[in-house]
């Protein structure tokens, strides 16, 4: 699977792969959360995202006319994945994990809101199902950014560092290519400008409350994940996630 000529298939894979990889990243923290409540929250969010992955990749597989959600998740190599670079960044310390989540959730929430009125009824249904979960995710990650930012000297320093270090990965989702633009034109997806404005407003509001310094909105943004050019982290994530299906094709439990 090298190219996806159909823009809608590309668009569905991007949504599905974002949720899939972030879910996998959060699942790695199962049993390792800094507190029991956080551990449960991380795995709950991972589970929600996995459920959303199934809806997106299930639709993508139908559109593609072959395979299913499992073959798309377990049998594509890194260059065929269309997730953004943000979700493949390592879990790091807890500030890194939560800042990655906060940037993702903020964009994700406004995207789902936009997709509620998608001209594709199936996409609108998936968004309607997902937005309730995504709202919980965003409340929690925003809360933790405030707690860590407006917390101790150490927590403040760590979350500010995470905010700065991950910022260059936060903008890729707003850089629309031909496939994204085709979706906007067909009324399937919301425009980039409206999403980016809502994203920046919410991030700056939460950062002000968290006593964090907002990074430069016009800074250079890393890009390429949506087109299959990933950071080195993705290969390692896939090696772990796909091992079983690669070693024992068709294995079930």
């Amino acid at each position: 699977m090298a190219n996806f000529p159909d823009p809608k298939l590309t668009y569905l894979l991007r949504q599905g792969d974002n949720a899939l990889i972030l879910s996998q990243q959060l699942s790695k923290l199962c049993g390792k959360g800094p507190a029991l409540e956080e551990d449960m929250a991380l795995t709950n969010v991972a589970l929600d995202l996995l459920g959303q992955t199934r809806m997106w990749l299930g639709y993508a597989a139908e559109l593609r006319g072959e395979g299913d959600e499992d073959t798309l998740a377990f049998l594509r190599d890194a260059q065929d994945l269309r997730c953004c670079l943000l979700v493949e960044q390592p879990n790091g310390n807890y500030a890194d994990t939560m800042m990655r989540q906060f940037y993702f959730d903020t964009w994700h929430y406004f995207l789902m809101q936009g997709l509620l009125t998608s001209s594709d009824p199936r996409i609108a249904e998936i968004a309607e199902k997902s937005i309730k979960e995504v709202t919980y995710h965003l409340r929690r990650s925003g809360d933790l950014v405030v707690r860590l930012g407006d917390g101790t000297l150490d927590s403040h320093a760590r979350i500010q560092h995470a905010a700065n270090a991950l910022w260059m990965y936060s903008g890729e989702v707003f850089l629309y290519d031909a496939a994204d633009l085709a979706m906007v034109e067909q009324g399937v997806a919301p425009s980039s400008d409206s999403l980016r404005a809502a994203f920046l407003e919410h991030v700056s509001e939460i950062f002000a409350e968290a006593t964090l310094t907002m990074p430069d909105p016009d800074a250079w943004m890393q890009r390429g994940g949506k087109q299959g050019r990933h950071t080195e982290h993705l290969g390692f994530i896939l090696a772990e996630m796909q091992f079983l299906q690669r070693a024992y094709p068709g294995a079930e439990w």
Partner: protein
Amino acid sequence: MNVAQVWSWLGEVADPEIPVISIVDLGIVRAVAFDGDACVVTITPTYSGCPAMQMIAESVLDALHAHGLDDVRLVNQLSPAWTTDWMSDAGKAALKGYGIAPPTQQAIDISGLRGGVKRGKSGGGFVVPDVTCPNCGSTHTQLTSQFGSTPCKALYKCLDCREPFDYFKCH
């Protein structure tokens, strides 16, 4: 064989996670209809990643097969999205008896992004509901975590009897 009969059979199928409540009381079964000889049951997932959905689907098939309905078709419906508003009063009472506080308000307002644990009951755009302790009936309770042992529950503690408990969160 009629639709009402099928509904009453489905009313005996328990939720696999919370066995005191049936899938009908939970609002998971959205429609029952006959298409020729085939019985078509429409179900809707509570949370998209709910791991109980597959088991629920199997329980529905098992129950109807056991009553002699061989031709059963399950339809998974995403929209309108499931909400705790669809939970029946009998279901809510059963939850309470089981030690899980039932949802207390209408479905969550998805426009409120802010607030939560730290900001307390009225801060921000998100009002934390008043939850009654299922053990002692006190409303002097506190949210400990938005996320609980399953995706549909939050963790609370009672500040009077000091017992921790699950709250079936509004969704």
